[in-house]
């Protein structure tokens, strides 16, 4: 066991005694060499939890144990066992990625710092053209990758990556996932904080869905999916962003711009295809695809179910 979070609650008091419960009795465990996804919408409480794991803020209730020792009691130890890629960009100023990564590497590993590992990382992420450019002059994606390398150059026991693929191009995203997976082969555990559910599904071993400070469900991707696993999903590209009538076989629907997703019972598949064909002929939708439910469906189903109850 690398990390054990037990009943952690954190309440922030804003202006005028406004209380905001950022974390509400969260409990989770992370094993050695595991990639654990923390999924949730903006403001769900993911970053608050991460900051508590790092010992940057203290929980109001509950405790966090890192390799068997309390983080609250020895926060400095937590900072040396964990490295983190923050959600915001790391402003490198005049530092080049090479300087930044090697200095952070030396700060973490001391004499054990391995320049070859740095070269390997730069190569694996195809960063050659940027490594000797001043940070100020780099694009957002290049800076994000540099911050990623800073977090994994001397990974320690736990690496926390907060939205690591933001700003990164699709090709390098793939490289990034490979590097993350290779970390775990040396026994390092990874916490992946994201709201990009589709990416997380392919990358994580286990995950927890956080919503409004609470964990709604956790487990392996297939366990989490099992709550909606009997369903099929139909994904549509709408011809325009205007609203369309939701067919009665749709168990749930989710619309994002011109992308629309319906969940349905497997026996409704032929009816759905007929319906979709008609819409294509009428020019209302451009394209449709039918597939088994994904984590994203589970995620939307679980979080919206929760909202519906309130």
């Amino acid at each position, binding site marked *: 066991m690398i990390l054990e979070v037990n009943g952690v609650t954190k309440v922030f008091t804003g202006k005028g005694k406004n209380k905001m419960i950022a974390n509400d009795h969260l409990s989770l465990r992370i094993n050695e060499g595991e990639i654990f996804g923390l999924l949730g919408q903006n403001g769900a409480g993911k970053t608050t939890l991460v900051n508590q794991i*790092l010992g940057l803020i203290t929980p109001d209730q509950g405790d966090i144990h890192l390799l068997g020792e309390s983080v609250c009691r020895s926060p400095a130890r937590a900072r040396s066992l964990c*490295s983190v890629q923050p959600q*915001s960009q790391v402003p490198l100023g*005049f*530092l080049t990625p090479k300087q930044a990564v090697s200095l952070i590497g030396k700060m973490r590993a001391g004499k054990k710092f391995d320049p070859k590992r740095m070269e390997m990382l730069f190569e694996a992420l195809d960063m050659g053209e940027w490594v000797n450019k001043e940070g100020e002059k780099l694009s957002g994606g290049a800076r994000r990758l540099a911050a990623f390398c800073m977090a994994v150059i001397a990974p320690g026991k736990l690496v926390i990556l907060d939205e690591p693929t933001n700003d990164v191009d699709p090709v390098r995203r793939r490289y990034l996932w490979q590097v993350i997976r290779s970390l775990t082969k040396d026994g390092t555990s990874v916490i992946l904080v994201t709201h990009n559910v589709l990416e997380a599904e392919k990358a994580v071993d286990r995950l927890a869905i956080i919503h409004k400070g609470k964990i709604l469900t956790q487990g392996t991707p297939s366990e989490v999916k099992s709550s909606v696993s009997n369903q099929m999903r139909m994904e549509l590209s709408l011809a325009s962003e205007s609203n369309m009538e939701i067919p009665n076989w749709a168990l749930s629907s989710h619309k994002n711009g011109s992308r629309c997703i319906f969940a349905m019972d497997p026996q409704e598949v032929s009816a759905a295809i007929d319906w979709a064909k008609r819409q294509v002929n009428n020019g209302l939708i451009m394209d449709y695809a039918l597939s088994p439910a994904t984590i994203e469906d589970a995620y939307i189903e679980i979080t919206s179910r929760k909202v519906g109850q309130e």
Partner: protein
Amino acid sequence: MNPLSHYKYVFQLQFLRNAGFLVFMTLIQILISIGIVIGFTYLIPSPDTATILFLATGAPTIILIFTGLVILPQQVGTAKTEGYMEFMRTWPVNRALILGADTTIWLIITIPGIVVSSFVAHLMFSPGYDISWTVIPALLMIALTSIGVGYGFSYLLSPTTSLAFSQVIVFGALMFSPVNFPMDRLPEWLQTLHEILPIYSMAEVMRASLAASTFEATAGNYINLFIWCILGYGGAIFILNKK
């Protein structure tokens, strides 16, 4: 790993990150300090040697105040808004070391300005420098107080507030503080205020070591600096370690 190597790496990281800015700032410091010595002689039509000595021994103090209480808070403000402060807090090093490394950098950028302006003043006016060995500890103490207080308030206050505060300080230090002229020219209430604030003590200690035969500083001046220095750094470390 030992604190010394941590210090080394943090220093390198912070120094390289700000390298271009620091070179620029050092040049500005040189210009400002020469400007104070020469510029004030335009303001005062026919200054006597005593007046010039006041200006020449005041310029280094102004440089240190400017660095610690104006440039530094602006830098801290930017680091806060950019999220760099939060990032520093995740480093596996003692936070006091980060403060120590940053202090060293600020110290380094003030030295060229102080040395050059003193040379220029000496060549142009020979105002009667009489440099005592105490100049090294005095300079350190004044710099640490100024930098420490700068850290203290810029960590404590929001970026906007500390920016406004530093603007008031630069104006106050230049026009309403007994750095470039004797204390007795100020109204009584300002004199009382300056007995408490560190600026007067900084100026006195600096003068006493640059022109030892003309000026002397009291033990009270040293104690005043010491207290402000502790308050500043104490506050900064408290904020850095706050959860």
